[in-house]
């Protein structure tokens, strides 16, 4: 286990995750890579149908259809509790923002709670609260999603409210200005207050020098400060339209009743815009090594990370994304992974060491390594550790047994994930807003089982042979610290 990453606080933790900023959240620490992206990459079984681990098709009783105005609908029945999760996903994220308006996708997400002509002054939220519901929303580089969890009998009302705010949002200076301050506080909390988050933000901006993934989802401070009602509404009018949205409902419902309700609510929203194909500037191949190093006196655990651009689930073909998933698991996923074994258990030079694959984006994905030294060891040794394990895979590949074990574990994790209707809804919602189909998700176990050790080695050679983008989070050297804490001493 990892006690250092699960410290219990005496106090209740930060209470609010309203308008959660998932991408920023999952990227906020070098040591805990991308839970959402990982979940998105590991689709899972449907409770009612997946009777065993060996199930070949996930969620076979899922229904999927499209309304006449172009809105896609996914229904995932789960009758264990009389509760539903209702989510609307828009195919728009920070990577779709106009130049110079970073953060507008997320800012709009906050403003969507302010009210509409028919339901002003946050009436939607007040109603959700009165019904004992939970609600929230989140924004990433590729999608923006809103959800409520309520007793099943309130589903029609949630659908009516959510359809209403797809076209009738009203904004005034009075609500926009304080909310912009809230977002600036959110940025200070999530990014500016955390050395590892500041490094991650800077590192991402050199990992993507041309593609908009290089800008933070929450936005650069100066650009957030310049956002206003007009920029938010322009973005809303361009992207919030039924033909750019996916409705996902999981829980104690049947497809027929949802279909009827969806036609009555969302079905009556006219197409407001034609957002068109999501073509972003490409990321060119770049020569030379890119390294970024940040020292901060508040750093207590130094870390190193290696990042590579690789295909995502959406852009990859020929089983390459599945092979990359297995590669990440074998190298650095489980408690018996190669990096953990070598660095933490055998050489005892690392407190943590691992690898991950962020596969869930519309454009390119990322493959990453990380390692943190134990006292008395340094980041050079961590780099050697990563390079040695990577070199071993490039040279000798992985064994049949490792692939079989990893596949079994990953498919079992998917069965565990089906315990939560929310997790299921998120898996399908994120897939459908990042270039994948329902079928892609449902046939994931079949594809995983086909991956061979040769394919795992081949993707490693193809994508991880070049130079990584390296991030180093360090403590200031002793002489710098002395200078910083004793400014009165003249050198």
């Amino acid at each position, binding site marked *: 286990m990892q006690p250092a990453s699960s*410290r219990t606080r005496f106090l209740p933790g930060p209470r609010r995750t309203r308008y959660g900023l998932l991408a920023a959240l999952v990227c906020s620490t070098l040591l805990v890579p991308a839970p959402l992206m990982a979940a998105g990459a590991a689709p899972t079984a449907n409770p009612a149908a997946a009777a065993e681990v060996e199930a070949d098709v996930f969620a076979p009783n899922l229904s999927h259809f499209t309304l006449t105005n172009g809105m896609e609908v996914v229904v995932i029945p*789960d009758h*264990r509790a009389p509760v539903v999760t209702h989510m609307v996903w828009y195919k728009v994220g920070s990577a779709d923002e106009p130049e110079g308006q970073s953060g507008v996708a997320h800012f709009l997400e906050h403003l969507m709670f302010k009210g509409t002509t028919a339901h002003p002054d946050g009436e939607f939220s007040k109603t959700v609260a*009165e*019904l004992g519901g939970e609600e929230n929303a989140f924004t990433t580089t590729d999608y923006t999603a809103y959800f409520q969890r309520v007793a099943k009998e309130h*589903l029609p009302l949630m659908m009516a409210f959510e359809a209403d705010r797809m076209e009738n949002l009203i904004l005034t200076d009075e609500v926009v200005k304080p909310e912009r301050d809230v977002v600036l506080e959110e940025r200070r909390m999530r990014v500016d207050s955390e050395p590892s988050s500041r490094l991650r933000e800077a590192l991402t901006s050199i990992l993507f020098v041309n593609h908009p993934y290089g800008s933070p989802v929450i936005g650069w401070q100066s650009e957030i400060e310049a956002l206003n009602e007009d920029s938010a509404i322009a973005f809303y009018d361009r992207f919030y339209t039924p033909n750019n949205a996916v409705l996902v409902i999981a829980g104690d419902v049947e497809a027929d009743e949802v279909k009827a309700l969806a036609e009555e609510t969302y079905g009556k929203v006219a197409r407001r815009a034609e957002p068109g194909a999501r073509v972003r500037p490409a990321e060119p191949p770049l020569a030379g090594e890119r390294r970024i190093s940040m020292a901060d006196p508040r750093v207590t655990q130094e870390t190193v990370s290696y990042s590579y651009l690789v295909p995502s689930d959406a852009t990859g073909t020929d089983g390459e994304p599945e092979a990359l998933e297995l590669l990440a698991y074998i190298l650095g996923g489980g408690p*018996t992974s190669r990096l953990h074994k070598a660095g933490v258990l055998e050489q005892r030079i690392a407190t*943590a060491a691992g690898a991950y694959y962020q596969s869930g984006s519309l454009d390119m994905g990322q493959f990453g390594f990380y390692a943190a030294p134990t006292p008395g060891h340094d980041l050079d040794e961590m780099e050697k550790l990563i390079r040695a394990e990577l070199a071993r895979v490039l040279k000798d590949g992985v064994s049949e047994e490792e692939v079989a074990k990893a596949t*079994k574990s990953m498919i079992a994790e998917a069965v565990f994930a089906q315990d*939560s209707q929310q997790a299921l809804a998120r898996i399908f919602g994120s897939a459908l807003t990042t270039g994948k189909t329902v079928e892609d998700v449902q046939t994931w176990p079949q594809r995983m089982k086909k991956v061979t050790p040769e394919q795992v080695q081949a993707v490693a050679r193809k994508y991880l042979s070049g130079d990584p983008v390296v991030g180093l989070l360090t403590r200031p050297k002793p002489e710098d610290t002395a200078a910083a804490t004793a400014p009165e001493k003249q050198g």
Partner: protein
Amino acid sequence: MSVARLLKPVVTGLGLLGLALTSAQAVEIQKVTSPGGIEAWLVEDHTVPLVAMNFAFKGGATQDPEGKQGLTRLLAATLDEGAGDLTSEEFQARLEEQSISLSFDTGKDYFYGTLRTLTATRDEAFDLTALALTQPRFDAAPVDRMKTQFLTGIRRSKQDPQDIASELLYKSLLGEHPYTWQTEGTEESMAALTADDLRAQFKRVIGRDTLMIGVVGDIDAETLASALDKTFGALPATSQLDAVASLEFTPGETVTGLLDVPQTQIFFALPGITREDPDYQAAYVMNHILGGGSFTSWLYEEVREKRGLTYGIGTSLAPYDAGGMLVGSVATRADRAGETVEVIREQLRRMAEEGPSEEELVSAKKYLTGSYALRFDTSAKIAAQLVALQNSKLGIDYFDRRNGEIEAVTLDDVKRVAKRLLGASAPTFAAVGPEASVEAVRKAASGG
């Protein structure tokens, strides 16, 4: 009990009548007693081929011996690091091969275990749990590895505004009580812990007399009964716990720490209420209106929505065994930290002196009763609830009673408990941030 029943009292009142509640399945809790006399609460559900088991022993970090703070936390971290003939690596490999998840953790008052397994590996899962609970090895390598990780965490928390502020807050409010210890201990105490310490603490904390078990999923009562004896039957009959002194409060101080960060972290706390107190539900409702629950609380409205001073603010009741507290938390922009504290104080005063309106009370009760079912929609959540309910000794029918108890809270109850909790003394404030901001907090907290 029936989760479906919990949903019925909710009235929409919004003109759109919901669907009838026809297909809801009731979730029944069974009390299962093994041949060996071990009791567990079970919610049987065969929809998903998995079993979730949570269990707890009384005696968390408060049971750390003087000078050995962090011991119970280290025990939790090392109990799954090798047992019987299996070394740490072998034990972890066995869990991974079978896709079994077994972990331990500690709070202030309780020591927790969590098991997740697919049906196919159920027997092995119970066997491995039994092995960890009866023959842990505490080998030098994994113990050292865990200590190193904790020491890293302790050093990190010295740079963490929340950790610094919470330590300041509780030392000021509670003096030297064991609740003020960090569960990881200090660098000195953690570094000095040994495998012998772990063996001694294991004997003191792990005993059948305080064991509470909740099981959910693909297992019937009969199978569970025999599994209980197999898993827990060989544990010592009794634990050897020290009594924990009741909390004594010295509220009203303002304590501050300096850190060069862009936001100022503020905590505030007052003496609260314990779970057995007859006014507990009234206090729970009052806290919801003040700063809990949904996005509609007074503090959320005043501090975030109207003034944009923070991304998040909230309060909660912390009903520990030795005493309760009411604790609030906010991270705010440093240059307006004083204003934030002024707004908080004003809302506390308003709640103590005026209390909420009848309308606010009705809304709060609707939320609290309506949302109760959301705590029961995954096996993992239900298993955790089953254990928490047993720990607080509320009875197996509490799930059925609970919404009625919330409904019964009157406006007078809320006003009375608000006056009692918020009107008796000034809160303790702890603030960590740049110097000017914590000075502003000092000034605002003292009414200046």
